[in-house]
């Protein structure tokens, strides 16, 4: 078998393959012409075109050619390496070639998809082929490193997504730390009364799962805590968690709540965040009776003892467990995990921004979350629909799409508002007998049994007006409108503008990324889409993966979604983490940088530049050192090094310069 012959003139023997990608590439580029051109390039021993290079026969072609023609390098001219570089490296390995001796040319995204002129696109494909052939000659054989995976998992966020992911992982025998920034887990779901479309009680299905988290031997639950810092890499993350002071020892408190009764404030008088400000609480409080963990906490902003140091501390004196500790300080704890599930959820649109609806101006205007608390038996009115002035509403208008489908606020459809508006319409009618109007633009009920739920509401006599409300006003044009909130809307199905007087307006606010989504994104080194939700690796095929290995996302932090979809996604994220753990190790890409110690001047330019903390300075040797396990191959250090002593695998000067010379040569 000829290893080297006159045809390649002593150069390594290159196999060149160009893909038609159906008509994706061949429709715009003359594939045969590029193949013929490549066949004549120095070093090319064989050149072929094939309809789908990524198919099994396509890969087989490469593997068998390696033996048949004694190939030492492979160039594949096809789609983005992001998609198939791994495919062709594997094909090369199958044929007995080191997988890093493969180079891909992207003539789909970079040529056929972005050009319309066939001749120029073909010329461009030839230029790129020439550059790749010149470059690949310099590719060295490289080996992937294996590192073990830490089987412990961190779950961030204790809403239904985080709860479900943590339980799934814990049930599989993995040790999980669940970190939640609020004092209790449960998230938004804990605020709801009923869930659509089945109308089963949210607490009845959620609280058993909350208790299971607390009781599970494999779960460590850290509430009132936030992730501060994440270091390391897939399989081996070091995470710093900030633990905020509750001023109550969590291990001692049993949640008997006698301290709350004993507090020197006889009546609750402070803003109750859990009840959306509709109720009041004392400085020592618990969010709701089934809060998990069932532990009270003290608010330093309102507690007399913490503010002034002068209080009778009746709370502490009635506590027979001696749980109070006013000297508690914030502290940080470090944990080691191999993978991370982010389930940080969403926030709702700030209804005050849409001034035309009068939220904050007219007391009869409510957000949907507030109404969730009003219809909830454990809420501030014990489930009675009472307005802020104590009246019972006789007519209620629900405005859909507040902060959704609007270029002025959020462009996207928030997916859940149509359905929760139907649910609230049903509950309001059931609890109060009021006339209920739904003002919608398009009714979106695409889930299992959702359309049937809409049909049920139609039958219940709830009014549906198709139109976006322009204004909620207290300007009356007739005696019937006096003292009412008037909603101006076009009934678009009738083509007639209407004024509808009501007592209560409910704003169905949309779902947005959390306020700190950008900070969290940076902390975990993942991406956000243009709207600010966390970016999945692939919208269809990798919906819970991120571009950072070992970090997974679940629930509404990735985009608006309802409870069934959230739970499904949380299960998927847990499964991805389990797959990583059970593989036992990860292979690291060898495209890392290294320091040629003899040439390093010790200037330290590279040290602060590394975004991954992989570059350190060896004080004894006065030289830079790179930890190749931490290095992600971004190349910043190599580019910045003034003495040229840092080199990067696959991006060596010889490789890059040959590629440039290749693309410029004609």
């Amino acid at each position: 078998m000829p290893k080297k012959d006159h045809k390649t003139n002593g150069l390594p023997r290159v196999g060149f393959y160009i893909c038609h990608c159906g008509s994706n590439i061949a429709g715009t580029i003359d594939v045969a012409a590029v193949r013929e051109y490549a066949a004549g390039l120095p070093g090319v021993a064989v050149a072929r075109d094939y309809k789908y290079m990524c198919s099994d026969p396509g890969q087989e072609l490469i593997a068998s050619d390696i033996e048949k023609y004694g190939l030492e390098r492979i160039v594949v001219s096809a789609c983005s390496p992001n998609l198939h570089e791994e495919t062709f490296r594997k094909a090369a390995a199958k044929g007995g070639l080191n997988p890093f001796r493969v180079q891909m040319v992207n003539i789909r995204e970079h040529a056929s998809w972005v050009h319309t002129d066939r001749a120029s696109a073909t010329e461009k494909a030839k230029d790129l082929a020439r550059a790749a052939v010149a470059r690949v000659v310099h590719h060295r054989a490289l080996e992937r490193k294996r590192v073990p995976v830490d089987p412990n998992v961190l779950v961030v966020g204790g809403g239904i997504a985080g709860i479900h992911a943590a339980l799934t992982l814990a049930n599989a025998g993995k040790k999980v730390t669940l970190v939640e920034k609020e004092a209790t887990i449960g998230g938004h779901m804990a605020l709801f009364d009923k869930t659509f479309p089945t109308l089963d009680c949210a607490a009845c299905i959620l609280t058993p799962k909350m208790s299971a988290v607390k009781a599970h031997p494999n779960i460590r639950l850290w509430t009132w805590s936030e992730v501060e810092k994440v270091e390391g890499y897939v399989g081996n993350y070091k995470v710093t968690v900030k633990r905020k002071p509750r001023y109550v020892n969590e291990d001692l408190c049993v949640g008997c709540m006698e301290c709350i009764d004993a507090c020197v404030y006889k009546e609750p008088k402070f803003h109750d965040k859990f009840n959306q400000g509709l109720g009041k609480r004392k400085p020592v409080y618990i969010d709701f009776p089934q809060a998990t963990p069932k532990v009270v906490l003290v608010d330093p902003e309102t507690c007399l003892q913490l503010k002034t140091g002068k209080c009778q501390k009746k709370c502490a004196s009635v506590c027979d467990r001696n749980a109070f500790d006013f000297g508690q300080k914030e502290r940080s704890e470090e944990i080691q995990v191999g993978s991370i599930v982010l389930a940080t959820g969403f926030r709702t649109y700030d209804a005050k921004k849409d001034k035309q609806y009068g939220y904050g101006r007219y007391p009869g205007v409510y957000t949907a979350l507030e109404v969730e608390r009003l219809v909830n038996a454990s809420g501030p009115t014990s489930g009675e629909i009472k307005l802020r002035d104590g009246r019972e509403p006789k007519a209620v208008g629900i405005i859909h799409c507040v902060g959704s489908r609007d270029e002025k606020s959020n462009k996207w459809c928030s997916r859940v508002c149509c359905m929760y508006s139907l649910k609230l319409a049903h509950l309001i009618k059931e609890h109060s007998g009021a006339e209920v109007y739904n003002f919608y633009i398009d009714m979106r009920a695409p889930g299992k049994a959702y359309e049937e739920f809409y049909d049920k509401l139609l039958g219940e006599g709830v009014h549906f007006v198709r139109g976006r409300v322009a204004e909620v006003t207290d300007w009356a044009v007739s005696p019937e409108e006096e003292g009412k909130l008037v909603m101006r809307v076009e009934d678009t199905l009738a083509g007639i503008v209407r004024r509808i007087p009501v007592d209560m307006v409910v704003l169905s606010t949309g779902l947005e990324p959390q306020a700190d989504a950008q900070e969290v994104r940076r902390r975990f080194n993942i991406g956000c889409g243009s709207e600010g939700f966390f970016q999945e690796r692939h919208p269809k095929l990798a919906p819970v993966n991120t571009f950072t290995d070992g970090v997974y996302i679940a629930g509404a932090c990735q985009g608006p979604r309802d409870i069934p979809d959230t739970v499904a996604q949380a299960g998927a994220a847990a499964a991805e983490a389990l797959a990583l753990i059970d593989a036992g190790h990860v292979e690291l890409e060898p495209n890392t940088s290294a320091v040629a110690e003899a040439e390093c001047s010790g200037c330290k330019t590279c040290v602060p530049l590394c975004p991954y903390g992989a570059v350190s300075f060896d004080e004894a040797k006065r030289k830079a050192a790179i930890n190749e396990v931490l290095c992600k191959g971004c190349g910043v250090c190599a580019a910045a090094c003034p003495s040229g002593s840092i080199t990067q695998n696959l991006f060596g000067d010889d490789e890059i310069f040959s590629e440039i010379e290749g693309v410029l040569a004609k």
Partner: protein
Amino acid sequence: MRYQYFPGCSLKGSGRAYEESFLAVFRALGVEVRELEDWNCCGATAYMSVDETKSYALAGRNLAIAARDRADVMAPCSACYLVLNKTMRGLGENPELKRKVTGALKAGGLDYREGVKVRHPLDVLVNDIGLDEIRKRVKKPLSGLKLASYYGCQIVRPFATFDDQDDPVTMDRLMQACGAECVDWPLKTHCCGGSLTGTLPDAGLRLAYIILNEAKKRGAAALVTPCPLCQFNLDAYQGQMAGKFGRPNMPVLYFTQLIGLAMGLDADELGIGRGIIPAQAALAGR
């Protein structure tokens, strides 16, 4: 501080009191205001229905004249304020339109340049001069005077540059700085009827009446406005409204007139007597 001043046709005619009070207030504040040389009509809303490019050229001529001086331009009339701003944006967004308009202006020996700032006196008073300064200048506070502040449409729509589109507050804050009280009401930016009061009175007068009637229901003694067309519709047509809907009998004043009064300027100098509905009773001897 120095500004250019674009009066527009109304301030030289039916809105004369607006010009008188506007100039008097800025004179008293020690701010130099110079009328734009040989300005022409901005085109208002009507001309846009006849010819789009010429509308932009009409406004463009004024902007070209204004560009000779670096001082900001104050346009007290809402329509002028909007049309001049809309023209700058329109020319900025549409290169083809800009080519045509600048070419035509060149044929008239005019040089269109970007960067002119056209501002409303409300914006200048609140953001350049400041409420503290106004408060300091108040000699006769308007205490006890209940006003409905009515902004009309085109100051905040479609471009909300210095105030909120649905609930503007700059004029309320100015009136409060002068010691007056502003009623809380939802019609601040509703339509006064525009030119329909003349062309289609059944529709136009109804809109004007709704505003006056609601202000009255909320306990206002007078309406205050920054727009000459609003003032005209709401003041001059009250007699015609009487036959159709009822007689509101509500004086309608310019915000500059009330600031002037609070600063102790003479009522005649401020054109207070030019209202069709007399304001004397509401102002109770001020």
